[in-house]
């Protein structure tokens, strides 16, 4: 057994190099993904439906997205209070819950926030599903929360000026303000009975999502600075509710490796016999 030990060392060092490269590759993949999408982690045992400070949120990976003033359509605005939103999400296979977090120096009655989703297979422009001139786009579903109302409004739009509350209200929301930060929780069932108006969330599938925020402060004349289309907006990003863990690819990999090993074995046996 003596001559085997330097050989084993060599094999082990080769193996650990392969494992190291796998880890490095895997880590960089995860990193690239964090900045472009919101992931809803699958949890069992209760979602924090109206508690932005629940411990369960720590199991959701945070994502942060930059905001711009809405300039696409009049009335536009050139400067807004909120520069970034932090987003987390969780789901339990039945309901999804989003946590929106952003810095706002003052708590105002007219503070508000919204999530926007593409609905169906047709793509939509991120500005309220504004109609495209050359291609037919789809509608957007908007979940709108306002501090004053203390609840969410489930809305549909296909362009500026077409925004209206739906006849079926499926979304709940609750905002909590403390230390200069708004934390707003939105929740809804993953699927609803109105797929032509509501975004349908299938675990494992990527869906386009965008964000909007209104700082309800007033100027010296007592007028609202941010209202209606004058708000902070984000571009489209991706959202995905995690699918239940699927270990089948580990099994396929093990089968393939076993087949390769068997092939080697048969090949070498044949070669040895032939000589």
């Amino acid at each position, binding site marked *: 057994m003596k001559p085997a030990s330097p*050989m084993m060392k*060599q*094999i082990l060092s*080769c*193996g650990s190099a392969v494992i190291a490269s*796998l880890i490095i590759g895997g880590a960089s*993949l*995860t990193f690239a*993904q964090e900045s472009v*999408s919101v992931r809803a982690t699958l949890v069992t045992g209760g979602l924090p439906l109206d508690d932005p400070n629940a411990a369960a949120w720590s199991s959701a990976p945070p994502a942060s*997205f*930059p*905001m*711009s*003033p809405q*300039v*696409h*359509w*009049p009335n*536009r605005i*050139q*400067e807004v209070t909120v*520069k970034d939103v932090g987003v987390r999400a969780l789901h339990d296979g039945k309901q999804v819950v989003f946590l929106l977090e952003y810095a706002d120096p003052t708590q105002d009655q007219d503070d508000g926030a919204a999530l926007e989703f593409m609905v169906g297979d047709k*793509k939509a*422009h*991120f*500005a309220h599903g*504004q*109609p*495209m*001139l*050359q291609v037919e*786009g789809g509608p957007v579903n908007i979940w709108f929360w306002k501090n004053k109302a203390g609840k969410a409004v489930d809305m549909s739009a296909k362009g500026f000026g077409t925004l209206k509350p739906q006849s079926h209200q499926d979304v709940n929301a609750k905002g909590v303000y403390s230390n200069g930060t708004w934390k707003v929780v939105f929740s809804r069932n993953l699927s609803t009975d109105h797929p032509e108006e509501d975004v349908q969330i299938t675990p*494992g599938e*990527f869906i*386009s999502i965008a964000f909007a925020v209104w700082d309800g402060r007033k100027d010296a004349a007592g007028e609202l600075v941010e209202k209606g289309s004058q708000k*902070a*907006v984000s*571009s*489209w990003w*991706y959202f*995905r509710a995690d*699918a239940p863990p*699927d270990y*089948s*690819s*580990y099994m*396929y*990999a*093990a*089968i*393939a*490796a076993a087949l*390769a090993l068997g092939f*080697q074995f048969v*090949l*070498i046996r044949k*070669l*040895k016999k032939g*000589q």
Partner: protein
Amino acid sequence: MGALGKPIILMVGMYLFLKFVLPYIPGSAPLPSSLIFLYLLLTASGIVIYETLSGESKDAFWEPMQRFLTGEKIGGLQALRYGVLILFPLLVGWQTYGSTATSDLPPTESRTIHPAPPGEYTGLSNPVPKTPENIMQGKGFYAAFCSPCHGGNFDGKGPAARGFIPAPANFADPTTIAMLQESYLFWRIKKGGVGLPIEGAPWKSAMPRWEVELPDEWIWKIIMGEYDGAHQSPRTWE
């Protein structure tokens, strides 16, 4: 191992040529790794065909490989042999995992940055005379309507730009307005993000549809001011 020396040198040489020499030949570009793999596969099959043409060369070609696999009389290469025999199934398993596992990455977006404009917006020439007054006026309009996103320095870094993906065009960059005609800019300014065709998806452009707010003459003046301010000139076909 003598008979394997030449093929190995040939394969390595081919790889180095494809990877490091070919991209620098004028008019060429770096090859994608899938294409390099395909070329190497073709080279390898060429070598196998050549080496197995006669019975003699065939034996000389396969014999060392057989000896390596069976491990007979290979002395110090025994460790390498075990390494190969262990790594090959692992590699097969890894590749299988990679091709069957669900990806954590969002769908890729193959946006065409400068899609073709509709026919009526090709070949238009700027009807506004290129006088210092008109350029000056165009820069004034630019400052009022465009600079919040495209920047006072025409660099796409205006104060309102940060949340928009794609970022507002940087006009000082030689790959934007310098490679476009004035007619193209006229179309993009007039119709904005919603005027993009299907190949311009995913339609994240925040560019306003300025035709509903600004007269054509102002738009032509803005184009003039943009080229002048960014120190670029429009592309022409002469």
